């Protein structure tokens, strides 16, 4: 009896029992899931029909039969394979997520700092922004931006054209077009020597960075102003421009235009430049504003976590408000900001999956359409799972690296 009570009262045994039970529970659940999976297999492929084995992806090589739009670099057409359609959808998702991360970060930073502003109006406006936007579901916000704002833009036949005039001098006509088909903006078009030029400019860039490092060391050793930024930038620009001229314009600018097609020219489309579709823009704005409301709270919290003495010391040294923010506060606040920021970026990337609601052809759209026509939902969902997991893990590893760097050295 005594040994038995001892047995329970020893922490080592207690731990072993608790952990052993936990392992058993996991094993049970795991087996249950495996059982469920084989069950699904039966549903998908009844035993009496000849069917390919479980989880094969050969069907992805077949012709997709659907076209995807909203592509930036390439659109696929219906003759491409299902695999291409999924990859193109994934590329659209990645593109959307990267623009969103940049946009939401800047918005979040501004609003977060704004909430700590000394100006009553700015402070209250930023508070209002956060409290309204983070409390309305993201999908609803996308609908509102799309139906109430974007769709009220003029049709392409009445597209707004923006010209650039300089003191009455017409420099560029029809520089930017705006209609409910989207924005058309000027863009650079690569010519045949683009690769060579990029190589030369890349080398010049590496050289400039090395030069800056050298000058910085020299300045630390000798003192005085060694123009650590001016010389490297000048050298980089000079080499790039000379190479551009020597290589016979490796890229040129292109302004957008509108072409007509169809019966009586009733159909108009953008041609040239770069077209940012209304759907893409709507999601960037809607999800960006939404996520920025969360990011701004992270920014504000991180700044408030610093001791007040930091800002006061800056004040005592006579630094301006801007200098205090960029030299003292933000570099230190960044250390606490990065881990929760990573969460927000991952959340936002996964949230792009609701973009399909307004017709943006992302990876969810591509996989859903294929599975609806070809079945194989288990395989399709596995592929979707792997794609989103890869994106989230990538963001997470970048943020961890950044965190490690900032923790070690500061900025």
């Amino acid at each position, binding site marked *: 009896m005594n040994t038995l009570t001892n047995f329970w009262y020893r922490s080592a*045994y207690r731990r*072993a*029992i608790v952990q*052993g039970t936990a*392992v*058993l529970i996991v*094993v*049970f659940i795991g*087996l*249950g899931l*495996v*059982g469920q999976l*084989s*069950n699904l297999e*039966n*549903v*998908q*492929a*009844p*035993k*009496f*029909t000849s*069917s390919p084995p479980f989880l094969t992806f050969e*069907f992805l090589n077949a012709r997709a*039969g*659907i*076209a995807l*739009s909203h592509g930036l670099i390439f659109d696929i*057409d*219906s*003759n491409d394979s299902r695999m291409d359609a999924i990859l193109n959808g994934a590329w659209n998702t990645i593109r959307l997520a990267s623009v969103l991360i940049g946009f939401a970060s800047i918005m979040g930073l501004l609003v977060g700092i704004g909430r700590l502003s000394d100006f009553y109006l700015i402070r209250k406006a930023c508070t209002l922004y956060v409290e309204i936007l983070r409390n309305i579901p993201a999908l609803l916000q996308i*609908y509102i931006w*799309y*139906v109430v704002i974007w*769709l009220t833009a003029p*049709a392409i036949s009445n597209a707004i054209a923006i010209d650039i005039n300089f003191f009455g001098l017409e420099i560029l006509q029809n520089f930017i077009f705006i209609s*409910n*088909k989207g924005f058309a903006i000027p863009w650079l078009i690569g010519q045949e020597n683009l690769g060579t030029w990029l190589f030369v400019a890349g080398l010049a860039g590496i050289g400039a960075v090395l030069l800056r490092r050298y000058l910085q060391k020299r300045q630390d050793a000798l003192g005085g102003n060694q123009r650590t930024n001016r010389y490297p930038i000048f050298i980089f620009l000079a080499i790039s421009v000379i190479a551009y001229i020597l290589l016979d314009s490796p890229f040129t600018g292109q302004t957008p235009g509108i*072409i007509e*097609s*169809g*019966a*009586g020219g*009733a*159909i108009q*489309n953008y041609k040239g430049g770069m077209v940012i579709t209304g*759907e893409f823009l709507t999601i960037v704005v809607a999800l960006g504003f939404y996520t920025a409301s969360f990011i701004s709270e992270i920014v504000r919290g991180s700044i408030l976590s610093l001791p007040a003495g930091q800002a006061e010391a800056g004040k005592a040294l006579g630094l301006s408000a801007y200098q205090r923010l960029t030299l003292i506060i933000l570099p230190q606040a960044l250390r606490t900001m990065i881990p929760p920021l990573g969460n927000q970026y991952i959340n936002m990337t996964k949230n792009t999956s609701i973009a399909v*609601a*307004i*017709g943006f*052809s992302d990876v969810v*759209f591509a996989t*859903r*359409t294929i*599975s*609806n*026509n*070809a*079945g194989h*939902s288990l395989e399709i969902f596995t592929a979707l799972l792997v794609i989103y997991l890869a994106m989230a893990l990538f963001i997470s590893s970048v943020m961890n690296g950044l965190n490690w760097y900032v923790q070690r050295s500061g900025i």
Partner: protein
Amino acid sequence: MSMSWLRRGFLLSMLALASVALIACSSDDEETTSVSTADSAASGESTLAKVQDRGILKCGISGSLPGFSQLEADGSYTGFDADYCRAVAAAVFGDATKVEFVETTGANRFETLASGEVDVLIRNTTWTLSRDSDLKQSFAAPTFYDGQGMMVKSSSPFQTLEDMDGATICVNQGTTTELNLASQFLERGLTYTALTFETTDLLQEAFLAGRCDGWTTDKSGLASRRGVYPEGPDALRILAVTMSKEPLGPLTRHGDDEWFDIVAWVTFGTFQAEELGVSSANVDAQIANPDSVAVALMLGVGYDGGDVTDMGLAVGPQFMQAVLQQVGNYGEIYEKNITPLGLEREGSLNALWINGGLIYSPPIR
């Protein structure tokens, strides 16, 4: 000393316990799997027995497609597809009200059927080879011959697809519509941009705003949306071109032929009844005194005092009686649900074969 020995012994016994549990589980596994697959088609338990045990038919429908299946203010469902659900229930239970309607989306309908959540899917679904073989489902018989159409604004100059080179087309997601659209434009050497929406309401907003030049889905769907268009039906025009064959009909899971036969022959029965002139109005009189041998065979009664012929369908020879009494024949179902959409039956593929259409039943004998 003794403590570390005790601890090691304890851990070892935990491990032993775990492995025993593992083995027990894996031998258990067979059993649990077979129990849970009893629900699915694979185990071979008949859907009919399951439906009869449950006492109600689970029927997958759309729920938001006027004319085919629509949720009414009082919680009931109306429409062509909903009536076919009722017909199957009437054949199984003799009571057309014993239906539980399960709303499905274009994207999840096949999983709903495959997982056994519904017994039959009647959700204006197009019969295609890949759905038959790849998705492992069986289409009973087309109840409605549709075709993909293109709707444009009346004010636009478009008459044919060739007029629409470069157009932006609004499409409903998750249908064969996208495939047909792609191949029709590809074959004609035309370019287009598809803008694909999940919900028809948002699609209509985009179309109203002039974001798209055309709107494509099955012609029946276009007609039903045209009827409720905010600017009035006259603001829209459906082009003459038919881009695809869309035979719509009920479907069941692969592997249960008995259940498939019931769904198929209830469907054929409604065709046959119209052809023989038996409707909900005169079915009782026909049961009492059938006009012809064909009518007697269909209703499962004797002709001129003769014996009843049982052709072996699992729901008995009289299955069409309740269907016709409580739901009606094909013509009645069409008249009630599809005609109000403005889709004329006469001269279309949905006329009886004797009137030049495709509605044809194999003989019931």
